[in-house]
């Protein structure tokens, strides 16, 4: 009925014009009937009209009153309640600060988190018709993705009935000179219709023309808005300028619009021109993205590609199990791990919000006890129950709106501070912003919080026999209220235990990950990456000469113990997979290939177990050699019965320098080393073969130096050593090996620390709730405690009774929390490393932590209970 009443008021607000019309009709009918009756009574029509008007009274005044009845009071009441709520908050600033603070924390975290969820998972990609954007791959097995070959890509590109645009995409680095210092820019090599895939047109100039990715085309480049601003100062005449990449002038033909592409790692795009050597079905090296023809669904495209694959079975006979796959662009952009992390973090902040709301509800309930008399008084003076609920809700509305405003402010600060850090892990298409959608979510959270914090307490406070409240003394806590407050605390404890369990599991997993033996020395090693420009190092020999020279220089730097040049750092992967062929055996062994120089094993402390390592004599022209790791030796032994691999000859395709194609070579295995972790700390131990960098030179390299002193003290020395060899070579970011290791664990660290932080907040909030309830109980039971103490109870008994009550709530909460932890364990699984989602130690630790925090929170009120002066209390009660 109350609801109906409020609804009628609300509805009246929106139906005002119709209600006014209806009233006019009623007045007219009324006066007509009055006239008719007056005429029937014998008056003249004129007199009858006057009489009817007189009896009716002032029409306008009545209408005004009618309207007021309908709507104005509703708004006025709300306003009065809000003002009243503000005033009552001002009277109790401690309560206001705590509740608004709790809500701000919960809402702020949720708003900030939602902006990430929205940007990464909800918002469509910031390009026209993003559902047409796809990634096209070869599928060695269902669910696996592999790049493709040049010829197969060109076959795909001819499928004009499937793709409106199709482009390869590969990262490249180029050296540029800005004001004399060499710098390294990241760019992408793409097909001419690359920007048609995104349906993006340059803001200035043009995109690539059809023939510009063909041999012999002039050197052109498209740059990002960010690069235009940073390197060219936003020069409006940019289209007449050129960009020298590795010393080669490229004509700038277009500048992209500001936005999504500015968050991409790449700042320039140039056409990928296939060389004659690349025209084959050899290396699978091309990542392919495309835009489907209008009206074509991914399913239809996939069906057509399956058909194409079936027709190509002859030319692809070597890869007879491989298929073609078409996947939504966004699906690969947001990996499963990122998606999981985001869900997990969002779940954590939602839990914190729920706990915050529970706490506020509890505080409001506690306050409600003291207000029952006020409510009873108002009810006896004629306030309807609906009015009382409305008033209590309005007071909560004040709390929630203030909390929401503070929360949005907090979210803004969090996004400003942490945004750049987080953005690194997010795809370039997602922009973190506090936009309308996020603010809308914030408003939704405020309303949800209002219902969660306000409804129960206001029902509790306004229902029940209010009249009896007038007669009660302050000790009278109604049983149902106390039970409700205890249930809220139990729920808070349960939610906290779920979070703490998650945090404990993730933390244990991270700890395990930290302690994984990488197989290499991490301490006292510093690294820097570089790319040798084709212009300065046109031949494999020139590159090999550079490696030698730079390592010599580095070793001469004081404090340096050993130096090496390698293609990939430990933990950072090992180039690509290749097949090792054994003469006379048809089935090859898949291994990873890593190019290193003579100093590598020594620098990283990898012991040689059999034979020898790579040595300085393994140079260009010398017999080709390789060193294998233990895992590769095991695989060779298992597959080819190699008892001792050292000395054996195997065949392998080795990649060429720059555009030089790969060549098949017979290579001698000269040694075996201990395994190192190539696929990250959590990755499997891969079979790896190491080949001398001098025999298989590459342009992108990493320099690593083992130092006797603090490695960071040598940064300047290392830069100077490289500068002496090549003053024009730009270096990448200098990182210690420890930093490289930490970076390789980022996927695990980010969600862990977020969940740990929120679990701590949740536990503190639950403790606060527990404290609140116990403190309240003690206050209300002062008389009882006083009597018991007067009858001989010792302070210790009183303390233990309070603690027992706390422990009861904690145990119930923990039991429910463990149930919850079991329920959500599946969601955690994919983020855990070698830790079961139901790990008893982690779950046990979570319970112990919660119990300790809870008992500490209970200790204060327990001490207070023990401090009750029996005589004082009894006298007070009179």
């Amino acid at each position, binding site marked *: 009925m109350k609801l109906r*009443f409020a609804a009628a008021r609300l509805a009246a607000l929106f139906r005002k014009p119709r209600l006014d019309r209806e009233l006019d009709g009623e007045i007219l009918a009324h006066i007509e009937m*009055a006239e008719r009756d007056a005429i029937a009574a014998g008056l003249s029509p004129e007199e009858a009209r006057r009489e009817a008007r007189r009896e009716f009274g002032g029409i306008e005044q009545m209408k005004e009153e009618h309207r007021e009845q309908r709507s104005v009071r509703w708004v006025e009441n709300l306003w009065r309640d809000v003002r009243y709520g503000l005033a009552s908050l001002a009277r109790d600033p401690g309560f206001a600060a705590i509740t608004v603070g709790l809500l701000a924390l919960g809402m702020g975290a949720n708003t900030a988190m939602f902006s990430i969820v929205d940007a990464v998972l909800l918002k469509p990609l910031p390009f026209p018709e993003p559902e047409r954007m796809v990634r096209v791959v070869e599928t060695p097995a269902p669910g696996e993705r592999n790049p493709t070959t040049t010829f197969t890509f060109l076959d795909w590109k001819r499928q004009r009935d499937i793709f409106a645009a199709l482009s390869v995409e590969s990262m490249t680095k180029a050296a540029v000179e800005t004001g004399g210092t060499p710098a390294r820019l990241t760019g992408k090599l793409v097909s001419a219709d690359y920007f048609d895939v995104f349906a993006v047109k340059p803001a200035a100039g043009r995109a690539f023309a059809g023939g510009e990715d063909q041999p012999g085309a002039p050197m052109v480049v498209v740059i990002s808005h960010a690069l235009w601003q940073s390197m060219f100062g936003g020069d409006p005449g940019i289209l007449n300028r050129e960009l020298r990449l590795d010393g080669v002038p490229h004509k700038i033909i277009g500048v992209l619009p500001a936005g999504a592409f500015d968050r991409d790692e790449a700042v320039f795009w140039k056409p990928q021109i296939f060389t004659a050597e690349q025209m084959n079905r050899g290396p699978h090296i091309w990542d392919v993205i495309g835009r489907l023809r209008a009206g074509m669904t991914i399913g239809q495209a996939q069906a057509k590609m399956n058909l194409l694959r079936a027709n190509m079975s002859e030319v692809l006979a070597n890869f007879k199990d491989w298929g073609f796959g078409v996947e939504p662009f966004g699906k690969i952009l947001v990996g499963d791990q990122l998606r999981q992390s985001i869900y997990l973090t969002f779940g954590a902040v939602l839990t914190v919000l729920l706990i915050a709301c529970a706490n506020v509800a509890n505080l409001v309930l506690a306050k409600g006890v003291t207000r029952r008399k006020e409510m009873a008084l108002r009810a006896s003076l004629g306030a309807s129950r609906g009015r009382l609920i409305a008033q209590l809700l309005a007071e909560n509305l004040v709390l929630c709106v203030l909390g929401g405003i503070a929360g949005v402010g907090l979210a803004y600060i969090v996004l400003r501070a942490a945004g750049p850090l987080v953005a690194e892990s997010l795809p370039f298409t997602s922009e973190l912003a506090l936009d309308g959608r996020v603010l809308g979510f914030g408003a939704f959270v405020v309303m949800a919080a209002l219902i969660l914090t306000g409804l129960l307490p206001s029902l509790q406070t306004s229902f029940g026999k209010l009249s009896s409240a007038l007669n009660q003394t302050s000790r009278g806590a109604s049983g149902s209220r106390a039970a409700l407050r205890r249930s809220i605390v139990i729920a808070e404890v349960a939610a906290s235990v779920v979070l703490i369990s998650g945090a404990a599991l993730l933390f244990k997993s991270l700890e395990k990950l930290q302690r994984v033996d990488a197989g290499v020395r991490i301490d006292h090693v510093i690294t820097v990456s570089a790319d040798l420009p084709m212009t300065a190092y046109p031949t494999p020999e020139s590159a090999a000469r550079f490696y030698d020279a730079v390592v010599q220089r580095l070793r001469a730097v004081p404090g340096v113990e050993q130096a090496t040049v390698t293609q990939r750092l430990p933990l950072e992967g090992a180039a690509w997979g290749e097949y090792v062929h054994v003469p006379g055996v048809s089935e090859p062994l898949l291994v990873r290939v890593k190019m290193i120089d003579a100093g590598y094993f020594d620098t990283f402390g990898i012991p040689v177990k059999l034979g020898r390592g790579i040595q300085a004599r393994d140079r260009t022209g010398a017999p080709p050699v390789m060193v294998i790791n233990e895992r590769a030796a095991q695989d060779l032994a298992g597959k080819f019965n190699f008892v001792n691999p050292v000395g054996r000859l195997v065949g392998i395709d080795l990649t060429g320098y720059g555009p030089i194609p790969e060549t098949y070579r017979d290579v001698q295995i000269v040694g075996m080393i201990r395994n190192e972790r190539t696929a990250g700390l959590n990755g499997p131990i891969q079979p790896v073969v190491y080949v001398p960098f001098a025999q298989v030179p590459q342009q992108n390299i990493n320099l690593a130096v083992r130092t006797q002193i603090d490695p960071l003290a040598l940064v300047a020395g290392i830069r100077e050593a490289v500068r002496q060899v090549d003053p024009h070579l730009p270096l990448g970011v200098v990182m210690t090996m420890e930093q490289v290791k930490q970076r390789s664990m980022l996927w695990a660290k980010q969600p862990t620390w977020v969940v740990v932080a929120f679990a701590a907040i949740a536990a503190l909030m639950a403790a606060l709730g527990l404290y609140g309830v116990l403190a309240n109980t003690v206050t209300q039971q002062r008389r009882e405690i006083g009597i018991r103490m007067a009858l001989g109870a010792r302070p210790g008994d009183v303390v233990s009774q309070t603690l027992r009550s706390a422990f009861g709530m904690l145990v119930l909460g923990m039991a429910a929390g463990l149930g919850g932890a079991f329920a959500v364990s599946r969601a955690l699984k994919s983020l855990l490393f070698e830790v079961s989602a139901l790990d008893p130690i982690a779950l046990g630790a979570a319970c112990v932590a919660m119990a300790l925090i809870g008992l500490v929170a209970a200790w204060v009120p327990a001490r207070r209970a023990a401090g009750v002066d029996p005589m004082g209390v009894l006298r007070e009660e009179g």
Partner: protein
Amino acid sequence: MSESKTDVPYGTLDLLILKTLDSMGPLHGYRIARRIEQVAQNLLRLNQGSIYPALIRLEEQGWIRTQWGVSETKRKVKFYSLTRAGAKQLDIEVRNWERATALVARFLEAGS
């Protein structure tokens, strides 16, 4: 003029309307006003218009409901009738009123 007319006692218009609807069944505004005047036998000074704000208030409280009907002058008008909650409310108000008048009566008797 034997007696002067009195105003509607404060707060009793709702009671009068509820009672009227209780005994007469569904009525439109004009009939409600006339019925009150009839019962009061010209002892009451009622601005007929003032029943309309009262009616909307009673409707919002859920004590009466409206239906469209046709007046004697063939106009579409609202007919008001008592709801179950309205019947209960009438009971309460009648009892309150009786208690209040009994109290006042006792005072007047004691004073005389």
